[in-house]
């Protein structure tokens, strides 16, 4: 197994009295797409936010490329990690182009001409017309917004992508095509992806490995095939049966 790009080392996290992650250990090797699935409140989103330092563990550590997240420059870390959330979080007061160029603009990475070219290229990468760059998010369809959210996360050329139910609010057909595109993007760019979802079909389709979580613990972590063949407990069996 390649060296772990993301590593959780005995992480505990609680909100008040409610434990969200209990002694959570996980290694994600470079280039893997790991999908995380579980009931809402099982801790999957919390795990994701620990990676880019939006949350800090109560005990234990999270390492990204060997660096302890709580001891590193979090601003720089976040700029090097793509982050996509369900509601897309597109900035309504900026054009699509400005949205996509946001992270690079924070460190003045691009001049105006580079920005125009890069934005056009990123829009094409996610299957959108470059002409959309001048539009505002309110003028886009749900699927287009999700794509722009992905393009924006890719802008600073991250090697890691954190995705929190990024396709949760689009229709089934759009979701399928977004999933296909994410897969080919991942292969093309060699991204390491942590992908949170509550849709077992999506988890199986996208994940090299699937992590099933229940109340802050890993209940099963394996390839989709092996999980389907031998579900570790009733919860997973139910999930798989629901799918059929």
């Amino acid at each position, binding site marked *: 197994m390649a060296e772990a790009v993301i590593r959780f080392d005995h992480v505990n996290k609680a909100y008040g009295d409610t434990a969200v992650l209990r002694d959570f250990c996980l290694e994600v090797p470079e280039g893997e797409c790991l999908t995380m699935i579980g009931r809402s409140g099982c801790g999957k989103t919390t795990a994701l936010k620990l990676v880019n330092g939006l949350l800090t563990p109560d005990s234990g550590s999270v390492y990204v490329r060997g660096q302890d997240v709580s001891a590193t420059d979090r601003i720089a870390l976040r700029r090097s990690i793509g982050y996509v*959330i369900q509601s897309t979080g597109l900035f309504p007061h900026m054009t699509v182009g400005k949205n996509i160029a946001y992270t690079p603009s924070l460190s003045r990475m691009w001049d105006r001409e580079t920005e125009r070219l890069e934005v056009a290229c990123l829009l094409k990468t996610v299957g959108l017309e470059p002409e959309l760059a001048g539009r505002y998010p309110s003028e886009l369809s749900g699927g287009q917004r999700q794509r722009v959210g992905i393009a924006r996360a890719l802008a600073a050329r991250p090697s890691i992508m954190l995705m929190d139910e990024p396709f949760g609010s689009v229709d089934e057909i759009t979701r399928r095509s977004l999933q296909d595109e994410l897969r080919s993007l991942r292969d093309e760019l060699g991204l390491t992806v942590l992908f949170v979802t509550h849709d077992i079909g999506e988890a199986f389709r996208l994940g090299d490995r699937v992590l099933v979580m229940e109340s802050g613990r890993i209940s099963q972590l394996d390839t989709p095939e092996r999980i389907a063949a031998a579900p570790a407990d009733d919860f997973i069996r139910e999930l798989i049966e629901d799918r059929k």
Partner: protein
Amino acid sequence: MEFIRSVIALYAERWQWFLGLLGDHVRLALTAIIISGLLGLLIGVWISDRPKLAPAVIGVCNVLYTIPAISLLGILIPFFGIGNRTAVTALVIYGMMPMVRNTYTGIVNVDPDIIEAAVGMGSTKRQLLTRIKLPMALSVILAGLRSMVVMTISVGGIASFIGAGGLGVAIYRGITIYNPAMTFAGSLLIALTAIVADLLLGTAEKRYRKKRRMK
């Protein structure tokens, strides 16, 4: 009809005097608007990050806002004497409330998902404020500015009771020499100034929203 004719006659006869007063009035109001605008914005931004402090600060601004204008001017005289300085101070104290409240409300009501996306993408605190929070709160802040400007222009009318300049001078003189036409002429100009300022800011606000395709 007779009355309106006498007001028009007054304008025609003493237009230079009225123009001078109008200039003084605009200068007085503008000074107060700039100071309370900046100060209110700064305080609003400052408390938007301090949820424990915010209600206290807004409470103080609300209390100050409820003091009747004439009595606030009276209270300030021992400290600042009479004249423009006291008038500006009083107007700034009034102008604080709408600015602080709207800046604060505008910022804390920015969609938390958007804040999270911006932080997760690596914004510093300052970048988050200047690129996301303030632009997104701008239309609420502009609404506060609008009401503050209109209020400052009209309350500025009583500043001459403590010896400050402006169109209040015409009102005050009209009262003392029993010339209602003069009082009316001064008041009318104040009202027109306030309406023009409101229209200008309203147009600016509309253009901003339209440019950003916001409803």
